[in-house]
């Protein structure tokens, strides 16, 4: 099996409505993400980890899934993905501010540890790559029940060095499970570049070891991401097994609010990535194609700002968990 590099010119064959929806999702995620950094810098949120630079890939992928039916085992950068699936800025700001009403964890986990039962978004912990196995298991269960739900999982390129990545993809391949594993390759695992994580040019080459299709996609292009995912999902629903998709993305921020990227990333590299910012790029494409008229982009952004303002207010007014709740939900039969 060879690694595939499907060619799609951005926005080629999708209707304007869908393209606009994509754009709105990307901006909404970006605006929310930026707000979280503001709250961090203001000292109101001790920790932020960002999806900036990953929005195009995530939005494209998420729009190819069936929310609430398919099973999702995401990772900490998947803010945009979860928003497309149906989580709200309010949900995420409740988590950021560690409120009792945080639907992910009731304020128990760090922000960006997604989990939301109504949408089959499987709760994630911090150890990287473990979720690949959970997604494989969820896919297995759907198959046992004869459903055609697929399981989606994602992780960073660095995390593919973990044993669980190997064991999960291998298991899914052997059992030809309906699993789609997306590697969001932003070139770095905190400070460690891909060249120190793997000796192949592309992460998608890892698929070859499992006898499954590996697909490389321009993750700065939501349409290309959407197409790649649509195809992988269709294959999986038809019972034709798993796919590994590598989305080439950019990390536009340091690893997290605790990181300083200056020792390991040149300022030129940072500037280059910023120049390729997927939100700006997609805006330009849509403007060129006339999907966005002058002023539309500003209006989209303003709408998102209003939504995020409201969400922030609600989250800030929402109570923290009570100390006594510390002891709840260790076991189900308590």
């Amino acid at each position: 099996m060879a690694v595939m590099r499907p060619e799609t010119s951005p926005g080629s064959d999708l209707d304007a409505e869908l393209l606009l929806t994509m754009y709105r999702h990307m901006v909404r995620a970006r605006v929310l993400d930026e707000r979280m950094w503001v709250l961090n810098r203001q000292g109101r949120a001790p920790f932020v980890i960002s999806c900036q630079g990953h929005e195009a890939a995530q939005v494209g992928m998420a729009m190819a899934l069936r929310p609430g039916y398919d099973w999702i085992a995401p990772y900490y950068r998947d803010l945009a993905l979860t928003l497309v699936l149906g989580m709200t800025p309010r949900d995420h700001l409740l988590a950021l501010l560690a409120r009792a009403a945080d639907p992910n964890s009731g304020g128990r986990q760090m922000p960006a540890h997604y989990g939301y039962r109504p949408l089959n978004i499987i709760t994630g912990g911090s150890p990287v790559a473990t979720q690949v196995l959970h997604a494989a298991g969820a896919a297995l269960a759907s198959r046992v029940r004869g459903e055609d739900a697929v399981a989606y999982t994602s992780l960073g390129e660095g995390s593919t060095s973990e044993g669980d990545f190997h064991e999960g993809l291998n298991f899914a391949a052997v059992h030809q499970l309906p699993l789609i594993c997306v590697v969001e390759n932003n070139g770095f695992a905190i400070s460690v570049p891909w060249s120190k994580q793997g000796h192949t040019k592309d992460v998608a080459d890892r698929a070859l070891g499992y006898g499954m299709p590996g697909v490389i996609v321009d993750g700065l292009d939501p349409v290309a991401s959407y197409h790649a995912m649509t195809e992988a999902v269709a294959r999986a629903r038809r019972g034709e097994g798993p796919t590994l998709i590598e989305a080439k993305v950019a990390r536009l921020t340091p690893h997290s609010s605790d990181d300083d990227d200056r020792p390991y990333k040149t300022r030129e590299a940072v500037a280059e990535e910023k120049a390729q910012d997927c939100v700006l790029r997609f805006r330009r494409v849509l403007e060129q194609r006339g999907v966005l008229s002058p002023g539309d982009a500003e209006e989209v952004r303003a709408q998102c700002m209003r939504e995020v303002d409201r969400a922030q207010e609600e989250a800030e007014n929402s109570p923290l968990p009570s100390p006594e709740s510390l002891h709840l939900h260790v076991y189900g039969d308590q």
Partner: protein
Amino acid sequence: MAIRTYIEAIREGMRDEMRRDPRVIVLGEDVGVKGGVFKATDGLHAEFGEMRVIDTPLAESAIVGVAIGAAINGLRPIAEIQFQDFILPAVDQIISEAAKIRYRSNNGFSVPMVVRAPFGGGVHGALYHSQSLEAMFCHIPGLKVVVPSTPQDAKGLLRAAIRDPDPVLFFEHKRCYRLIRGEVPDGEYTVPLGCAEVRREGRDIAVFTYGLMTHFCMEAAESLARDGFACEVVDLRSLRPLDRAAIVASARKCGKVLCVQEANLAVSVMSEVAAIVAEDCFEYLDAPVRRLGGPEVPGVPFSPPLEEAYMLNTTKIEAALRELAAY
């Protein structure tokens, strides 16, 4: 009531639950056509087919991690780890994931999964087919840990474990598999998790133990009984949660305590039992708490003289009981 070996009881427990509940599946290495290296799953593949009895790749983290995902998506998986020794590659999935999923999701998700694994020595299994590694899991909130010592408990506890809403580690003493037989009730009984069982009543020395050692302790107690010392033998059965009330009651009643386990002692189940006694029975004790366990070496060696020196037996337990009786 029928007479069953310990392993037959386990096999029947799985079979009966699989018949009763289509959500129950079995997965692990060699559990399919071969029926497991100890034959615990013998016949299940023939009865329930490939879809529910799954030969996995040789990868323990996958076995447990896939079981977690399947449990989250509505199944009730029983994951078999071929030997407890080989559970270690799956420790991250067990401790970081299974144990914390309910808590970290604020009750949004749960992992009703059983991980079965044979443990224990005395079978010429050497360092990696003889270990008793349960202690490390007993430290972890969110897990339950069960060790049956009789066929009746094996079946009843296993059924309760399969129906439990949370992850249960079910450790079976491999030496008991064919050595121990006993009556098994007919019908759909379960034995509740979390409860110790007094196997023999007495008022002189309380003996706390579990697994194969239960049988050795019973024999030693028998021998002391001939000399008029009445030992109360408490089979803990559930190592997490421990049955604190039962421990305290027997320790207070007897005033002398011997803790017996096959595993080495440092930071172990019997450390906790002794600590509970030290906390809650201070005014009732007539002697120092005594513990008896595996020596401070990294495993059970292969060579017979070394294995024999390593393993506890009735004689060693009896000697400790007599010493304590004389205190």
